[in-house]
């Protein structure tokens, strides 16, 4: 472990964050907030620059340093990102600012602000920017860090991509990350153009395009996507779904291998569950409310896809929908999007592995001597990876339970606490009951906001990457050097 190298890279990250803040400065001119913005950027950029220039370059980092950089880097960027909320005075407390920033960078989309339209545009842009930057970070995380560490069987995210091996961070992985960023930027630009064409203002189009591709959920309106036309909502459904797909598949499709989607077992699971869950929600709405209109179908599809892809936009207050749909949506909150996407959650690929493994165990009851192989599509999954995934499931359940306990202890009711904890861990945004799509998180109080911020980071970084920072072994020299 070479702490200097870690400090250096985090310094670079902070300088980049400060540079991103400068994009909001032109909007702050008319608001009289230029001072606040510049001081936030100067503070973050200054600290970053010092860390960058004061440390000598070592050249290359090993896996252990990689983990520490990811864990500390996200925490540092989240804290830095909270400064504009504080320095411009929009956030009531430090905890609220940290929550809003964590919610942004982890692409969650939960907010403490009851009314969005009164926020200054520079802050609105910053919220969308944090989503979009967070989305980029997640792509790198999914390509480079998680498979390298084998976190929860994350090798499965790129099972079919040649060249991603667990023995180095550079140079192939850097190339891969750049290609995937290219896809991300391209899709964002296409969506922005579509929004413009469908009548959004350039400012709204840019904000929502960034928010959608990052599977974020921050909007420029209190009513979220309900404030826009049905056509815009349908386009958003498609792009939310796409943002929840492994970006490697998009890259392959864009380079002419259009069958890549259909060949991927995880994609088939994700598509099947999206379609069937939307249909079930629509059916439940029809039966319970007698509403079988196209509008009802749009709401069912939009909110289901929004939850499944872990985006968190809403067009209706699904916290008031029939109970059965709420339970279904809670299930989707847990499963989340595909591995290697910008979405969060347990990940479809892991859910598929758990389901296949369980099916095999049931088969063993019928055939006690059967050798059951867990498969993803037709590819066998090594039992070691299955165990990784099961351990990850345990981690998810335990963390969720702990989060729920903490939130109920801090005064939330059970449904609010459960759904808020799950929503934060899976980086969705809205929950149910008091934190439903029509409500916000501002009323929960500072301690609860900090608990939720921690849950967002834990879920986003897939637990291990963050928890490893608390292992004493990480900080010792032994075994740390290449």
């Amino acid at each position, binding site marked *: 472990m070479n702490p200097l190298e870690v400090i250096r890279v985090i310094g670079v990250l902070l300088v980049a964050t400060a540079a991103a803040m400068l994009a909001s400065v032109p909007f702050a001119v008319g608001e009289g907030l230029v001072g606040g913005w510049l001081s936030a950027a100067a503070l973050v950029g200054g600290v970053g620059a010092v860390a960058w220039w004061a440390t000598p370059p070592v050249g290359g980092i090993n896996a252990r340093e990689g983990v520490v950089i990811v864990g500390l880097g996200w925490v540092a960027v989240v804290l830095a990102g909270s400064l504009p909320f504080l320095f411009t005075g929009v956030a009531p407390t430090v905890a609220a600012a940290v929550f809003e920033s964590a919610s942004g960078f982890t692409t969650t989309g939960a907010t403490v602000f009851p009314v969005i339209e009164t926020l200054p545009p520079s802050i609105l842009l910053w919220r969308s920017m944090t989503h979009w930057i967070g989305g980029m970070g997640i792509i790198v995380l999914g390509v480079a860090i998680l498979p390298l560490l084998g976190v929860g069987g994350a090798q499965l995210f790129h099972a079919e991509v040649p060249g991603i091996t667990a023995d180095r961070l550079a140079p192939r992985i850097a190339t891969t990350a750049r290609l995937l960023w290219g896809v991300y930027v391209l899709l964002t630009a296409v969506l922005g153009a579509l929004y413009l064409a469908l009548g959004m203002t350039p400012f709204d189009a840019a904000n929502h395009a960034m928010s959608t591709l990052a599977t974020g959920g921050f909007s420029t309106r209190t009513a979220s996507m309900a404030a826009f036309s049905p056509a815009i909502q349908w386009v958003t459904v498609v792009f939310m779904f796409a943002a929840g797909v492994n970006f490697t598949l998009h890259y392959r499709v864009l380079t002419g291998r259009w069958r890549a989607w259909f060949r991927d077992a995880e994609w088939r699971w994700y598509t099947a569950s999206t379609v069937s869950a939307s249909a079930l929600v629509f059916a439940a709405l029809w039966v319970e409310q007698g509403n079988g209109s196209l509008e009802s179908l749009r709401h069912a599809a939009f909110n289901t896809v929004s939850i499944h892809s872990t985006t968190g936009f809403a067009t209706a207050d699904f916290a008031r929908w029939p109970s059965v749909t709420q339970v279904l949506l809670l299930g989707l909150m847990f499963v989340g999007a595909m591995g290697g996407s910008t979405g969060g959650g347990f990940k479809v690929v892991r859910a598929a592995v758990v389901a296949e493994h369980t099916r095999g165990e049931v088969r063993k009851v019928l055939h006690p*001597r059967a*050798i059951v192989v867990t498969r993803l599509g037709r590819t066998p999954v090594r039992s070691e990876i299955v165990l990784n995934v099961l351990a990850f499931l345990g981690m998810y359940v335990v963390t969720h339970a702990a989060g729920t306990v903490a939130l109920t202890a801090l005064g939330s009711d059970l449904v609010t606490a459960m759904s808020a904890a799950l929503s934060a861990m899976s980086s969705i945004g809205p929950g149910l009951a008091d934190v439903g799509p029509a409500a916000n998180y501002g009323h929960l109080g500072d301690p609860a906001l900090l608990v939720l911020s921690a849950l967002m980071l834990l879920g986003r970084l897939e637990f291990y990457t963050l928890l490893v920072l608390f292992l004493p072994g990480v900080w010792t020299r032994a075994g740390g050097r290449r």
Partner: protein
Amino acid sequence: MRVIIVGAGEVGYHVADRLAKEQHDVVVVDVAAARLDYVESHLDVAVLEGSGASPSVLERAGIKEAGLLLAVTSVDEVNLVTCMSAPSRPGLVKVARVSNPDFYAERAALQPGTFGVDLLINPERELALEAFRLLQSTAASDVVVFAGGAVQLLGLRVADGAPVANRPLAAVGAGERGRQLLTVAVERDGRTIIPTGATVIEVGDHVYVIAAAREIPRALELTGHTHEKAQRVMLAGGSIETFYLAQLLQQHGLDTVAIVEDRERAQELAEQLDRTLVLNGNVTDIELLELEGVGGMDAFVALTDYDETNIIASLVAKHAGAKQVITLVNKSDYVPLARRLGLDAAVSPRLSAASALLRYVRRGSVQRVATLQANDAEVLSLAVTAGSPVVGRLLAEAGFPEGAIVGAIVRGHSVVVPTGRDTLRVGDAAIVFALPEAVAPVTRMFPT
């Protein structure tokens, strides 16, 4: 013709035996001197100690004059290198035995014609193919397919109450006039004869019938069987044969269960075969077989490496009620024994491999189609040329030796199952069923 056989193992020995009996000059090359002593004392062949992969050894074995090089050691790589080491020239056919399933993958680099190999022979796969053919018709002990599947030779046991039982063949034939069916051999008490119209068929006889594809149900009916294809199959043992057969079965949508004794091998097979249920257990564990419903199986195939285990497992399966039982036996002495024990069919990897190899050893106009395992009888395909004495004569008068019979005539795209009043024309291919002693005389009747 000079034939060089590299590898004096089971396959090499058996092929050397067959080729030597057919008057070929056979040189057997192997690294094991003791094995060569055994070969030399039992067969009329020359032996040479050394590695077949070495060009100088091949040269001493007479590769310059050889017409056929068979690399049949148990190591794939040695066989491949042997073929590469031999010169490529017209007139020399180089055959390599290759068992590794990876080399048989759809887009494997290794294909006939590459790496100096003209032909690839895979004994395990040949055996699996043979077992698969048997499963196509659960009553048959032998199935040989020729003329692209238009005609088959079936080995059938005459069951109790069969319509053909206790009647002379001529009387049976009178009722079946116009059908493309012909009984070419009858096996009784370990002896095989070519029947005449006067031959009376008895219950328990084993008859070999050549039938056009559409007449197969009738052939089964006449011998007291019903036409059934296996749907549920249980395989015992974790051999390479198991892999190939299970792969064929799952490709054709059959329910397949494989019982594998070795845990690691079971795991490996379970990973390779995605639609086969692989169980880890002892193949002679009666409780396990019953738990997995061996009695309800259409077929049970014993494919372990041990003959005795295969025979016991097969008896258990047969006793429990499995409809068709196929047993792998390595020792050729056990092949007739298996039938006497009441097992439906016995298959042997070395015989399958030898049969497959011999199929490619053309001698002039002769091509072997198959060698039957129980009695060494051969099915030959002979090209009819202008110089042949049989041309234009009625088959009954063409002078075929006693141990041989024309089972089918392939004429262009059609196939005729002949009677004594048919004639052969130039350009035909005659499918002849011949007992071992009749092979040479028949062959002489069809000069190139």
